[in-house]
């Protein structure tokens, strides 16, 4: 069975773009290679989000940068390593039909406008602005925790593109709903929630922090209930499309996020144990779910939990 674009019981509308199904790749997961994006598309993914890209290439932190914690949870401090705007726009230059959101990270309006100007002529769906990476200074969450900076950056990106903009929020010192509101008021169309949460792991034998950066971000199973809560609150209060993210490991989690209010759902850490084929498995299971529940389209379940 191939779940193609004609089978629209799984299709969802994110702002003004239509995804063939609600599954997406989370930023920073396998996110630097066009050939990998094509492979994920063959596995029936709805859309991909790239690794967060900055103006200049970044090598990131030394290893250890990613640690499996057991129980499907992970800790990472990769340090936003990425090839930079120019190399990455070459990487995507032959893209024809893969639905791609480019994740952007930076510290000033100038950097964001330079990136959007370079990327905007590519064949891409839109952007996700990463305001929530919890472990790199002057980028990500350090920007996200400053509402005035968020306002300026989102406005700058808005001025340079007519494509949809999602702003990715996390759990920092500014309330997520407040942050989401500032982003939407500045011209963002979608909110992605959530990024990883600041966390740490220490080896008791050597008594040393394991990550080279000592502190990193927690992802995977452990953060799902927090993600569900954020999606529920944001979609209830702001009435904008929300992309859920955090701890999805099965089709059930996708459904749970949608019931909480997500229009689409990103999948990240679980690729470590299940590989790219998880997108195909989840998509097929969603199709079953839609049939069993007698739904015309999966969107019918979005935000049902708001009633209770």
């Amino acid at each position: 069975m191939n779940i193609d674009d004609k089978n629209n019981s799984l299709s969802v509308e994110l702002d003004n773009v239509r995804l063939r199904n609600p599954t997406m790749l989370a930023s920073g997961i396998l996110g630097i290679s066009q050939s990998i994006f094509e492979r994920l598309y063959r596995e029936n993914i709805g859309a991909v989000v790239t690794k967060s890209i900055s103006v200049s290439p970044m090598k990131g932190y030394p290893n250890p940068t990613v640690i499996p914690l057991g129980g499907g949870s992970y800790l990472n401090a990769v340090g936003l390593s990425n090839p930079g705007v120019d190399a990455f726009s070459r990487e995507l230059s032959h893209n024809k039909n893969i639905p791609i959101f480019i994740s952007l990270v930076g510290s000033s309006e100038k950097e964001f406008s330079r990136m959007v100007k370079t990327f905007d002529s590519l064949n891409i769906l839109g952007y996700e602005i990463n305001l929530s990476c919890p472990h790199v200074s002057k980028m990500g969450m350090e920007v996200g925790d400053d509402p005035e900076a968020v306002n300026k950056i989102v406005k700058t990106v808005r001025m340079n593109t007519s494509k949809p903009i999602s702003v990715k929020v996390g759990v920092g010192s500014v309330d997520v709903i407040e942050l989401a509101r500032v982003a939407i008021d500045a011209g963002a169309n979608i909110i992605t929630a959530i990024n990883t949460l600041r966390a740490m792991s220490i080896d008791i034998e050597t008594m040393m922090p394991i990550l080279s950066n000592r502190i990193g971000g927690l992802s995977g199973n452990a953060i799902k209930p927090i993600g569900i809560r954020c999606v529920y609150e944001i979609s209830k209060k702001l009435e904008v499309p929300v992309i859920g993210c955090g701890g999805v490991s099965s089709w059930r989690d996708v459904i749970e996020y949608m019931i909480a209010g997500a229009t689409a759902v990103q999948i990240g850490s679980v690729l470590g144990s299940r590989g790219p084929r998880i997108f195909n498995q989840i998509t097929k299971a969603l199709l079953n779910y839609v049939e069993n529940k007698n739904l015309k389209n999966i969107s019918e379940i979005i935000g049902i939990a708001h009633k209770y």
Partner: protein
Amino acid sequence: MHTSIDTRRIVRIEEIVSETPTVKTLVFKDDLSYAARPGQFLMVWIPRIEEIPMSAMINFKEGYAAVTIRKSGVGSTALFERKEGDVIGLRGPYGNEFALGKNYKKILIIGGGTGLVPLLRLASFAIKKRLNITMVLGARSKKEVFFEKMARKLLEPVRSSVKICTDDGSYGLKGTTVDIMSTLLRNNTFDCVYTCGPELMMKGVVDLANKNSIPVQASLERYMKCGIGICGSCCLDSLLVCQDGTVFNGKQLSKMLDFGISYRDKDGQRICYS
């Protein structure tokens, strides 16, 4: 107690073998590494310095394994400088393995440098199946040859031959491993060719095997951050060396645009060999 491969084990380096002035083998006790399949790798933590992927080297003692390091970058140099009694962390073994076909009788193993590590483990599995094994060890010159004694000792119990070659002819046969392979193919038929070593050498071996329609498998290396299919830093075309590899077959390799051509840097930019 059952330990998951993801659980970090802290092990003490019990023995260090100097293979060449720039290559050392560090021996430690770890049941999961002892049981590693040929081609699988460990993520080796050098506390507060680095974590690097290393193929699991065999050791003749039960419950023991090793890693063989060539001193080059920050991580490998730090590991190279460890002393007996120092501790390192391990997770893994991760990745797929060299496959020995059910009806294989005679195989050819071709390796160079630290690429011999997974091949010696492969040989130890092939011996249990009583296969006829021809092993070619290549090096630039005499002082770069190592693991010869280990290979001869390991292969003793079965019908086998070990051939050494050097580019400059200072030891063994003169020529590259690919030269030796093409000579061997004139008078022998092999069920499969297995290779690991410098990528351009493997490219030569794979192309020659494909041209002669002989099944071939190669264990590849790429820069890795996670080792478990999350970060994407080890990608090779649409495949991940850590999760889909490290071993790929001739058919997969012949379709790859990156194999023998390019790899990705720490920041993910594509860099060409040579």
